[in-house]
């Protein structure tokens, strides 16, 4: 009997690992502002925060990670990366969220160029300078041997909630077991969102789905303001 092949690539696991040195630990994804407002103070509220984040920003990021993976796998001309970049900008109205996405993109790109180099990654860097996080994740995984937009989208959706969950441990002194359980409670929804993102991965950039999270936009902008005025622990 032949042993079953693993279906998830090591590259996907490495990127989703919190030890991947992409700088994600500096971002709370709006959680720090929510904690300051008093709207998240325990594990139950954290679960609701993560649920909303997954369905909003997480789903949006998953769509672009899957599309970038699909594009890297099929081989696209470099100007495709500018199109994807502009389309994700248009779906990110809050300047603070664009800055956070590009900061994490930059960090992930730097680490990824040593860990998972590819021509597509160099072209992405050359065309966009400081690319959006989901697009970098998509290119890192799509340009490799295991080209699964669904796994890429799942990794991205997971990253959109795992970072805020570990930020909650630092900000609230939350039990790490509970924070981690709030993430794994969302596994079925994460997989559904990843599967949906994979379905649109081959669409033209202009017709990729858009998902808005108005309250998160307000949190991100308030965080930026308070970060500037009073200083904050996290960059976003």
């Amino acid at each position, binding site marked *: 009997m032949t042993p079953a092949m693993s279906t998830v690539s090591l590259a996907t696991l490495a990127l989703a690992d919190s030890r991947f040195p992409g700088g994600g630990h500096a971002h709370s994804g709006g959680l720090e502002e929510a904690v300051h407002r008093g709207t998240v103070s325990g594990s139950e509220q954290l679960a609701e925060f993560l649920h909303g984040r997954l369905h909003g920003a997480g789903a949006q990021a998953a769509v672009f990670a899957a599309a970038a993976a699909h594009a890297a796998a099929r081989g696209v001309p470099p100007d495709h990366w500018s199109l994807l970049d502009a389309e994700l900008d248009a779906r990110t109205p809050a300047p603070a969220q664009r800055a956070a996405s590009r900061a994490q993109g930059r960090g992930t790109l730097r680490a990824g160029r040593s860990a998972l180099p590819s021509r597509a990654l160099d072209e992405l860097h050359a065309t966009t300078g400081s690319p959006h996080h989901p697009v970098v994740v998509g290119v890192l995984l799509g340009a490799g041997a295991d080209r699964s937009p669904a796994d890429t989208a799942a990794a991205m959706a997971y990253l959109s909630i795992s970072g805020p969950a570990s930020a909650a441990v630092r900000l609230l002194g939350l039990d790490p077991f509970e924070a981690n359980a709030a993430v794994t409670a969302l596994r079925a929804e994460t997989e559904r969102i990843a599967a949906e993102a994979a379905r649109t991965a081959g669409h033209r950039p202009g017709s990729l789905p858009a998902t808005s999270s108005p*309250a998160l936009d307000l949190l991100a902008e308030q965080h930026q303001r308070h970060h500037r005025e009073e200083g904050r622990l996290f960059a976003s």
Partner: protein
Amino acid sequence: MKSTASLTVELDGAGNSVVRRLRSMAPLTLVPRRRGSSATGGAVVHLVGSATSPLGGDDLSLRVRVGAGARLLLRGIAASLALPGHGPGGSRGSIDIDVEDGGTVEYLPEPTVVTSRAEHRAELSVRLADSARACFRETLVLGRSGEEPGGLVSSTSLERGGIPLLRHTFEPGRQRLRASHTHLGGARVLANEVVVWDRDPEPRSEADWALQPLAGGGSLTTVLTADTVTARRRLAEARAVHPSGGELTPVEPAE
């Protein structure tokens, strides 16, 4: 009911914006109110929902074209209610606006109330030439007082010179999502205003609203409140700090 209305506004020889083509089709009635130069606010057309609409099964579309240098203010008259129909299927309302070089469009509808059994899809697509200007707002009321909202998908697409400035799709979702502090934080009213004018603002952030410069130009104000009176006030506050806010047609204060 399937209905297609259209409206074209152009400059005449005297520099006034005039309605060149206007086709109403029930329940979408377009009522020209005034012609005028760009400096005086241009042409004004009222959009009147002549039947109770949108109802389930309705498919309403409106095409608007603003010619080079012309200015149009398209204004709603009363709040609309998205209600369930007798037949199966949700309702759909789409508006397509094209503005040529130097043209200006302002689209200022009244709020849409999403009632409990509504299944409504609203689509707004605005295509601007490089030097065109636009201002449009949307106010969504998620259910009448004490009522759960039905299904709603509201999409906005804005391009200038072929470059995407904003692609936005909002769905209130289920109660759990509406309560999440990343989505609506329990707010019943979501209001947005997009301004693409001559100057773009700096970001401005308050607890229940933000004025956000978009990456490709223009700005989006996002407001989350419990009621429409406060939402309208917040939109006015955002206009007050927008460098082009004084050039927009004022919206009367709430009753």
